[in-house]
């Protein structure tokens, strides 16, 4: 175990359970990471000790339980790495590095906040919601998915006290349509002082446009193909906003102000 700004440890798997048809939540005993982590940060995990796959896989912190010393990751099975992760059982060890990256910016005396989550992009929002609710803020979360079966964390966020609105492509949960339709309607009726979004880049670009119309400040949680997670390989870039050049998702991010980046 290495401790410093970042911890590197072989964490005990406490639980690894199905949440929906292709999404699991893995809970790891990692008191060091839990102690220093904040909402928005991520970890980089090596799913096994072989060269297949070679690289670590980055995941947002979906739960940070400082009392129990655990962290959880909500992950969608999309390929080799996540499928191997899904096989882990309670008591197995997982090589985890973190907490990495920056955190969501919080304004203490803020009014209402709005989250926009596309698919598995809901992952980083639970710890953020807890923090904002503790500060006495009102939180609304718009969740987008193809259909009801692909919606995660609905009950958990509601139980926290979040006002959850859904948009599904087939109308099987909430409104039929896109998250941006719900967002536009919401911003028309309710003044929000801060928006937070996580999901596929095309969705983030659309959310950015809607928030700009309503002059709502927006923070984005970005993804990019990543290797080291600690800022040395310079691989995980996103184009900067109006300026030339690139930001690095692992180092300057993963959370950016919408104006900082061009999606």
């Amino acid at each position: 175990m290495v401790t410093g700004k970042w911890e590197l440890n072989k964490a005990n798997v406490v639980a690894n359970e199905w949440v929906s048809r292709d999404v699991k939540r893995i809970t790891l005993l990692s008191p060091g990471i839990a102690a220093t982590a904040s909402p928005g940060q991520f970890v980089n995990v090596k799913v096994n000790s072989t060269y297949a796959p070679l690289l670590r896989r980055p995941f947002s912190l979906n739960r940070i339980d400082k009392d129990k010393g655990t962290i959880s990751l909500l992950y969608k099975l999309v390929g080799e790495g996540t499928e191997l992760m899904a096989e882990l059982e309670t008591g197995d060890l997982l090589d985890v590095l973190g907490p990495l990256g920056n955190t969501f910016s919080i304004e203490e005396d803020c009014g209402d906040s709005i989250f926009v989550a596309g698919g598995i992009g809901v992952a980083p929002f639970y710890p953020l919601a807890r923090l904002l609710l503790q500060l006495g803020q009102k939180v609304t979360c718009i969740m987008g998915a193809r259909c009801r079966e692909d919606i995660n964390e609905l009950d958990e966020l509601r139980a926290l006290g979040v006002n959850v609105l859904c948009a599904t492509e087939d109308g099987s949960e909430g409104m039929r349509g896109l998250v941006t339709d719900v967002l536009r309607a919401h911003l028309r009726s309710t003044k929000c002082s801060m928006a937070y979004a996580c999901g596929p880049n095309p969705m983030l670009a659309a959310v950015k446009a809607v928030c700009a119309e309503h002059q709502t400040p927006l923070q984005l949680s970005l993804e990019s193909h990543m290797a080291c997670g600690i800022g040395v390989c310079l691989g995980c870039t996103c184009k900067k906003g109006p300026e030339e050049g690139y930001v690095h998702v692992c180092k300057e991010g993963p959370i950016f102000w919408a104006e900082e980046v061009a999606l």
Partner: protein
Amino acid sequence: MSSKQSAGSTQQGISQQPPAASGQDKRQATSDNLLSTNLFGIKMNSPLMSASGTYGYGKEFANFYNLSMLGAIVVKGITMKPRAGNSGQRLVETPAGLINSIGLENPGVEGFLVQEMPFLRESGVPVIVNISGNTPEEYAALAERLDGEAGIHALEVNISCPNVKQGGMAFGASCDMAAAVTADVRKRTRLPIIVKLSPNVTDIASIARAVEAEGADGISLINTLLGMGIDIRNKKPYLDNTFGGLSGPAVKPVALRMVWQVAGAVNIPIVGMGGISTWQDAVEFYLAGASAIAIGTANFFNPLAVPEIIEGVKAYLHSEGMQHIGELVGAARPK
């Protein structure tokens, strides 16, 4: 550490004997005689370095271990002017490998000196600056600019970057070009120069001989192998530049073969790299004739690669009854 020690040094070759312990030297305190090495006139705590572009400028790894176990930190490639790097997706994972198209993103030589050198100087670890240019003149001007800068111990001349449109790998592809860059750099700096060769050539030994003849103090190899990947959904190459550089365990057999060939062709020390991820890999490179080795892609998936490899090599030397790592260098070669 001041630059005095290396500037003007012409000492070549690896000393087979451990240097005498000198109590005064801060680095000696943590050194281990089994591994301490004198290479390019630089006193190194071990013949093990970071590979350029996989270690940033050292800071991040100080989170995980004491950097003084390294023989030198080889920093990310530096150019005269800052470079933003390449557009689009920059990384493609392959079986046991990684294709990168970073495009030499760096803050430029002045940015490097101001932003990164203070930490590196403070660390006390010898620094080797990896340099690139679009023309031989640009390499030479960079070499001159870095000459005499405190804390810089050697230059690694990158004539093998596959990710820039001009220069880069083109200079490493022919004996004439490689020789020309080496000669120009040699004239403009007193720092030891290590020329980093490209594996994307048909006859690596002749290129190694050409740079040796122009006064290179050492050779490092390999840089990345030219590779590509195609996204079968978009039906387009993943990388905007189409090709990128393949590194990691997948390239190790090729790298080892090239180190072997070059070791048979030149008399200057070789820094071997390419896929080294375990102490066993490291031992193979020393046995093939590398006086030192560098760890690259392994740093990404295992931040403790450096200390683990060092510990493993030490244990191996003990178990083999060897007194110093120099005994290992080239030991697999025909006598």
